Structure formats: C-alpha cells, structure tokens
C-alpha cells in the first residue's frame, strides 16, 4: 500500500509537470494585448515585456519559471490586474475565502445529501422516493448560478434575511462572516446535495437488495442496524470518492458564485486573470487546480482501501 501510494505520488508529480509545461507553453503562445501605434506608453510596455523575458524561446522561459519556483518560490509578478505585485501573495490572500465557503458548503451538503439518499432508498418506490428523486433531477439540471440569483433575490432582497454580498474582512470563522456567506453556501449546495442524494440512493438501493443484507436481517439485526452497519459502509465505496470529486466541483462552480456574492476568492481571480490576460496569475491558478485535482484522485484511490478492506490497491494478489 505504501509503495503504491509512493508510486502514485510520483506519477502525480510527473503528470503535474507535463500539464504545467503544456499550459505554460499554450499560455505564452497567446498573443499579448495589442498596443496602440500612437499610445505614448507603448514603448515602456514593450521595454518591460522585453525585460520580463517574453522574447526568449518558450523552453527557456519555462526553465526560468521552474527555477524561480524551486529556488525562490517565486511565481512571478502580476502584469495586468495587480501590476507589479507578487502573484503568490495575491493568491494566498484569496485562498481563504474560497476554502471557507467551500468548507461550509461541504459540511452542510454531505450529511443532508446522504440523509436524503438514505431516506429515499429506504422508502423506495413510495411517494417520498418519487418526490426526492424528481426534485433531485430538477435541481441537478439547473446550474448553481441560477440558484444564486434566486437566493439573492428571495432571501437578501425580498426577505432581507442575509446581506447581498459577503462581509468584508478576514474574520473567516466569525458568526457575522458565516451569516454573510449563507447565500453563497446555499447556492453552491443545492446541486451538490442533489448529487449526493442521487448517488447514495442508487448505491444503497442496490446494496439493500444484496444477499448479505438478507443474511444480516436473518441473524437478528434490525433494519436500521443492518442498514447502518452493512449497507451504508458498502455504499460509501462510491460515495466517499464522490465527496472529493464534489470538492473539486465546488471549487469550479464557485468561479461564478464568487462573482455574484462578491467573495474575494481564487475563482474570481482565475476568471479575471483569463479575461485580463494576466498570465502569471492564470498560470498559478492552473497549477493549483491541476494539483488539487490530481491530489484528490490520489486520495480517492487510496481511500478505497480504508473504506472497503476487500479492496487492496497496488497489491500483487
């Protein structure tokens, strides 16, 4: 298992390197913003680009990029959005907001999603199951930003229960901050809850009809005991990897939600970097998302062995 984890980690680093290289070259191949022929500032910009090494071959640029990261943890300077500021510092400043919103969302969505899935599975083919399943399909079909506008209109404007946008400041775990995040958390959560509900219901429904469940009941366990001790654990083989997957999904989904609720996070930063052609920020965001995705995949793979002892990943037998 340990050897397998090491091997997968090495592969992960290799894949990260290759993706980073491809992204770097593709990003540097993008045309730089055009300069007006009569713009008096054009000469300075040209000189600055020259000094920044834009006129070197791509591989030389990539080598410098890697060297700066490994020797100085220097991801470069922002060239458009935050002119002259350290890209890594900007990114670090924005990471907490994204992480906290997503953390709250995950904490909220997992139990509700699983609970609804379990409930629907236990009430299979009843009106409760039909209602939950239908709502799940409806909710899953609508993008999260649609909920964002609805949540904002109903809860913030009409009912005035919450602020329109997230509170300023860095007191991430204060009550006021939490309340101001609720609209964003809700908007992110609907789709995720529906996803967990659907997965849990599907898996649990199948597991509940397994022969070992019949055995569990015949040896005297109640339905609840059999469900919790045997059925749920089996169905978690699929659900738990889903949690990691959803975490990545939520990070992606929050690109738009962050804009709507004015959350100063990395999602908005990435979008702005793309729109503003700020390549160093975009590069760091790309590496971040790639690394998170690869790490999540690794954790998922390894987690199988812990969730279900029958699975021995990397074992020769």
């Amino acid at each position, binding site marked *: 298992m340990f050897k397998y984890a090491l091997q997968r980690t090495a592969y992960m680093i290799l894949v990260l390197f290759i993706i980073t290289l491809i992204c770097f070259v593709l990003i540097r191949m993008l045309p730089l913003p*055009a300069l007006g*022929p009569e713009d008096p500032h054009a000469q300075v910009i040209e000189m600055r680009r020259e000094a920044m090494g834009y006129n070197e071959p791509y591989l030389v640029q990539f080598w410098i990029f890697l060297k700066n990261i490994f020797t100085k943890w220097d991801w470069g300077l922002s060239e458009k959005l935050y002119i002259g500021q350290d890209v890594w510092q900007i990114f670090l400043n924005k990471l907490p907001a994204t992480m906290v919103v997503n953390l709250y969302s995950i904490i909220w969505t997992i139990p509700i999603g699983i609970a609804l899935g379990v409930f629907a599975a236990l009430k299979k083919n009843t009106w409760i199951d039909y209602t939950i399943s239908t709502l799940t399909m409806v909710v899953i079909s609508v993008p999260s930003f649609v909920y964002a506008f609805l949540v904002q209109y109903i809860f913030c404007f009409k009912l005035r229960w919450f602020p329109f946008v997230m509170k300023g400041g860095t007191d991430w775990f204060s009550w006021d901050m939490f309340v101001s995040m609720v609209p964003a958390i809700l908007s992110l959560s609907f789709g995720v809850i529906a996803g967990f509900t659907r997965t849990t219901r599907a898996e649990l429904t199948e597991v509940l009809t397994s022969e070992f469940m019949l055995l569990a009941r015949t040896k005297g366990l109640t339905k609840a005991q059999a469900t919790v001790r045997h059925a749920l654990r089996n169905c978690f083989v699929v659900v738990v990897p889903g949690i990691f997957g959803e975490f990545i999904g939520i990070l992606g989904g929050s690109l738009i939600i962050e804009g709507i609720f004015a959350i100063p996070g990395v999602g908005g930063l990435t979008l702005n970097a793309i729109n503003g052609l700020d390549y160093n920020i975009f590069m760091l965001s790309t590496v971040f998302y790639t690394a998170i995705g690869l790490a999540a995949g690794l954790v998922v793979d390894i987690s199988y062995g812990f969730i279900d002892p029958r699975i021995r990943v990397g074992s020769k037998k």
Partner: protein
Amino acid sequence: MKKTLALLLAVVMLLGVLAGCGPQGNTESTGGSESTNPPDGTQGTGEATEAPTTEATLGTIVGVAGEYTYRTSVSTMPANWNPHVYQTSDDAVPLDYITDSLYTLVFNDELHPAADASKAPYESYTIVPSMAADFPVDVTEAVKAEHPEFGIPENATSMRAWQVTLRDDLKWEDGTPIVAQDFVDSLERVLRPELLNYRAADNYTGSYVLVNAKEYSLQGKLDITDNGIELIPIEEMTKNEEGQYTTADGKLVYIGLTVGLDWCNGNSLQAYVEAYGDQYFGLEHWDELLAMADDQGLVPCTDDTLALLATVTTTVEAWGETEDDLLNYLVIANFRYEDNYSFDNVGLFATDDHTLTFVFKNPLDGFYLMIYGMSTSYLVKTDLYDSLLKETETAKGTVWSSTYNTSIETSPSYGPYKISQFQTDKSMHFVKNENWQGWNNDSYYYVDPEDGQTYQMYQTTDIDIQYIKESETRKQMFLAGQLLSYGMQSTDFDQYRNSSRYYASPAETIFFLIVNGNGAMLDERETHADFDATTTDVQMQQILAFRQALAISVPREEMAATVSPQRSGGYAMLGNTYIYDPDTVAYYRETDEAKQVLCDFYSIDVADYNGDLDAAVDAITGYDPETAAELFQQAYEEGLEKGYITDNDGDGKSDQTVTMIYAMSSEINDFLRKTINFLNESINKSAAGSGLEGKIEIVPSSPVGNNWPEELRAGTMDTELAGWSGSVVDPFHMADTWTNPDDAYWTWWNPSAIDMTLTIDGEEITMSVRDWALCLNSTDMTIGGKTYNFGYNMTSPENRLKILAAIEGQVLGAYVALPIMADGSGALLSHQVDYIVEDYVPMMGRGGIAYMKYNYDDSEWFDYVASQGGILNYA
C-alpha cells in the same frame, strides 16, 4: 465513535438550519457602514443646513459635519493605484480621493466667478488654487537667463517657465510636511529609466512636455520612427560602411522585431509570428533573426537581415506579402538619447520649500497650463516609495516593481480622504483626512444656489466602495437603500425613465453610421461577386444621392429610445459637450459657425426662420422621409443608368437588393440586432415610393474580430455604427482623426485632395482639408513661402473655431459617416443625497462628491428605509 460522528453531523445540520432562519436585521454588508449616529453623539437631522455640529471656521461661513457615507459600487475593484504605474481608470478611482492638485476646477458662483461674466452660477466652472497658494507667475525670461540647461529659445519670452508658490500647510495624512523638493523627487522617480514606469510618458508626450523629461527617461535608448508610417522605399535608402541601410539624411535603419508597428495594428512582428506560427510565416530563419535583436528589439537593416526577414514574411502565401511590403517592418533611428543624462536638466526645480518652477517645451497658458501642464499626479511619499521598490531578476536582467499604493499601509494620502479599510477585490473605505490642506482653504467653499448660504465642500464623511459585479445585485442594493446611485441598464429605462431621481449624463462620443463610397472596391466586389448579382447589389452605395438619402432616413431620437435608451440622437460629428475655449468655457456646438454647419448639412435655410440660427437648429430632426424618397429615386435612376442595378420586369423597382455588409467584430448581440433591424425598417420606410422601396438591406457579417476597421478601410465591408471620443476641451484633435488615413474608416475619401479656402484674420488661405487639420493641431504649413500654424496659443480661439467648423462641414458633406446617436448614460440617485445642480456641466459633471448634499445622515437614512418597508420606490 459512531455516536459522536452522528452527533457532530446533527449539530452541523442544526447550525445550517439556524443560520438560514436567523434574521439579518439592520446589518449592512460593508465594514463601517452600519446605521450609526455621528461619533459626537448627536442625532442626524436631515437637512444638513439645519444641523451644523461644528462651529464656523471662516467668519460667518458655516461648516457642516455629521456621519454621511457615500456608498457606491464598482464592477472592477482598484488593485494598484500607484500614480506611476496605474493603467486603467478603474485603478485610478482611489486617487480621486487621496490626492490633490496645484489647481482645481470648481463651479462658478459668487465666491468663484467665471471668466465669462455672462455665465449664470453653476453654468460654468473656474480655476482655483488648491495646493498652490496663488496663481502661477511667468518667469520665462529669468529662467532663460539663469538656466541655459533648459534650452529655452532666445525668441521665447513668455509662457515657457512658470513659478508656483505652494501653500505652507501641505501635509501627508500622518502630518509629514510636503515641500517643493518632494514634487521634484517624485518626478525623478516616475521618470527614472530603470523603473520603466507606465506613467512616465505622461510627462513628455502630447502638448504638456516638461523640458528634457523624455531625455532623462529614455536615456541610452534609440528614438525611432515607424517606417510603416513614413513609407520610405528601400530603394531610396543607402548603405553605410557596415552595410546597414540609412535614410537620405543619414539616419540608421533597423528591422523592428519586438516593437509595435503600424503595419501590425500596433503589435510587434514577434507577436504575430508567435500567435500564428507557420500558418502565416516562414520560421526557418526566425530564431536567427530574433537572436540578432538588441534590447529594444531592433536588428540593423542590411541586405542579409532583410533577406532573413523576407523568409519570414513572404514565403507563406497565406500571409499574402511580397518584398515590397518589407519596408513596413523597418524603423528609422532618429538619434540615441544621451546616456547618464542628469535629472538636473529636467524642467522642474525647487528654489525653496514652497517655490516650484516648471519649464515647458511648448508655450502653455491659462486652463491648459494649470489643469494639465501643472498636473502633479506623480507626487509620492518618497521614503515609503523607495522602501517598497523590489528588484526581480528575469531572463533579460532586472525588473523593478513596487507595492506602493496597493494597500492601506502603502497609500499615504494628501487628499480630502484617506483609506481606512481595503480588501483586495472586495471593498474599500475612506474617511476624512484631517491633515488635508483643503479644510483650511477658501477655494473649497461654495454658495448653495437654493438657499444662498455658504458651505464647505465635501460634506461626505465616509466613502464606501464595494465590488459588486452583477448589475442586478447593484439594483437590488440600491432599492434597499444600500447604494447611493445605480447606473441604469437598458432594461431599466421603461420603469425608471420618468423618475424624478433619474439623471442623464451626456458623453463625448457621437456614434456615426459609416457608409461605403469606395467605388473601386465596390465595383471589384460586384465583378468578382460571390453572391447572385441578379438579386443583390453593392455598387449603389457609391452614389452620393443614395448616401444623402440614408442620412435623412433615420429618426434618430426614436432609434436611440428603441435600441439604447440611455443615449440620444446624434446630429453632428462633434457633440454638445465639447469646449473650444476652456478659459472662457465656450461650447463649440453653441457657436454660430457650428450651428451653420448643421443647417448646411441638413439643408435648413436659416432665412426660413427669420435668420434665427437657434430656431433653425432646433428644427433639425435629421429625419425627412419625403426628401429621402426623392433622393432614393434619384439614386435609383442613376444606378439604372450606370448599370449598377436593373429593372428587367419593368415594375419601376430595382431587381436587386442593395446590400450593405455590417462589419461585426463578434457574434451579434441584442443591441446590434435591434440597431440593424431599426435601420433596415426606417431606411426602407423612407424609400417607400422610390425604385428602391424594400430593396435596401443591412446584413451583419460573420465575426471578423478586431479586423473590422481594416475591412471598412479596405471597402470589403460597408458599414458599422462607430464613434470616437477625445478630450472634451480639445475638439480640434478630432479634426485630425477624421482626416488621418491611419485613423479614419473612410480611406476612399481623400481630404488631402480637397482644397478649402478660409479667411483668417483678413487673409484668404487655401490648403487641403487634411493640411488644415494638421495646421489646426500645431503642424507648420508653408504656403507661398509663408508658414502657418493654427495650433493652441498660435492663433485666437475664434480662428481655430472657424477652421474646425469648416473641416466638420467638409466631413459631413462627404457623407462618409452619418451621425446617428450621441453617447450618454443614465443613473438613479438615492433620496439620501442631492446634486448641487440638475443639469450636467462638461468638465464638472454635477459636482461629484465635493458638492454632494445629504438629505439624511446615515442614521436617519436607515430609519427612513425601514419606514418604507425596506424597499424604496424610485419609479
């Protein structure tokens, strides 16, 4: 363990439910903007005039105080407002609050009368000293004698050197005094060559050039001219001993690889090669060529390097260039700026703590001198600035950057407000800067036009800026009383257009409909038609009567109301906001010359209005379907005669539909769809009864990206609703734009070939329209051995006005572009505040935050909003 986990999950779920049910109450989402009483414990009292909470500070002049927060939103949060490097107006927003200037503009009132005494209060503006203690003194003669390093010409006796005395109470927000040397040291930093500051060029380009600023900033660099503009053929160049090409006057010629070129739309050749690769370029020798480039991206132009360049640009057919085009990639080195140039030669120096002297390359006076020439926006707190400079090693050496003005700690204020809170991409809060000189400056008082009392400006105590990306969110927050204004979207106009709180603001841009009169290209398109020429025609557009008919076929106000309600009808090349003489605040469009141009263009006979020009202009609608139908019929007959169209079935109608291709930069959007539909409907309605009835159609092209201007210039596409805007106090520059082949969209109209005669100061002068435009913009023109220059300060504003009006008349009369819409915006203003004036005044707007008057303090405002049920009605 399991029980613990279950309990934990239950708690989390309960927490969520509680959060969902918890009332938000009166809490604002912005820091420091909760409903509070003023800090001195008094209750807010509504009308500010009735509730002064501080004593008068200057005689009987009453100061007002309280807690009045200006809450606003931005869709792009400032990130770097370093005055030396910021590039966008979004980034410059904080500078409006934390900086000051030597002189500033205020509304004209009893305290500050306008230069033109006929102007009613608040109809105009006047210049007052701010950081300066008094108005500048012309010291040209003295500086010329004592400072030969500035190179003031012997024949220059005035308007080159100006001395300013600074107030003695200038301070940074921490109380550190600001002295004259700080301005000089700050200028040195913005110009410092190794820092490559974006704003350095502001001090040495255009009309406001500090002597030797460019020489200091660009020391050691080559000064180059783009041969794509000069167009000197390679055959006319000679070679020096090293084999490098030189111009006839001995200037060295280089190949510009990484410099922006006119031929490449401002991009460098390298940018094109890297973007398109071997799709368009031969890459075999590209790296070899690139390796030869110096630190300015220039390669000496020799036969060998030209041959290498040719392999790049001429070997791939798709790029479509031959060796004849190589000259467009060349640049001419005029000279090399002296290395190790001393800053002592730059035209700004301090003689003592309170005396600054500016030395300009060109003569400056009045408005331009004080508002633009003496801009000291480069002022920085030098000790802090230096501590924040950071070196970064790159592939090509060191790049300097700075975090100055990127956070609270790095943003020292010397303006009316200081930053008290900032969170990147989130929010920004300002409070009053108690150390600002303006609190003790007579310039910052005004007489209220309603009650006649005198007040100090800047009643606003706090400014809160929130980053709100979505307009719908901004609207909801405005209706909930959380923002003081809301910039209306097109969809809001039906509901709020008639609101008493709606304020329309005109903008400088006039959108005109470009029309294609490029006969040669239209003929060629018809000859090589990839369309069915029996049913489609493009040639008719070159008939003048057709374009004249188009000009009066569109009901402009109706069109603006339909497609873009915040805008209004456009009737001329220059809108109503342009000022031709900023010293007297004289509006171009209000002059007889400008009015006559409009009457001529729309065929309005002033005699029909008893010689009353104003009445004649008021009668212009730009819409005359009867005359349009006659002109369309005339065009139809001319088209038949010339064989552009046919009438084979003899029904008196064209067999072909005249098709105008609308150059689309991207996929069609709602605005353009409405625009094209409206134009098609109104044009065909005007053509009713003519041979072109129902036979004219504007068709959107496939998206052509940023190439749309080139398509129009080449005549391969026909039309586009486009516009330019320039400085509101420099309408003359627009004359250059209209007639400049590099800028104008109508290259088929050649203003250099059209002579125009004007009588200037009793002398009859004839030159081409293009030359008049150049001459109007400070270019010397020699005619019959006599040199003319009608640039700023070279002749009277009245003469310049006459020339400008004549050029506008020529452009309109060529029917190259038909004015359709005037740009503008509309916003709702909260009941919490009022503007000092209802009408928009160019350069002043409605007074901005300096003149904003509050009807409620923050406490009262929140009470008021609550009493209205939390949602305000502005309809």
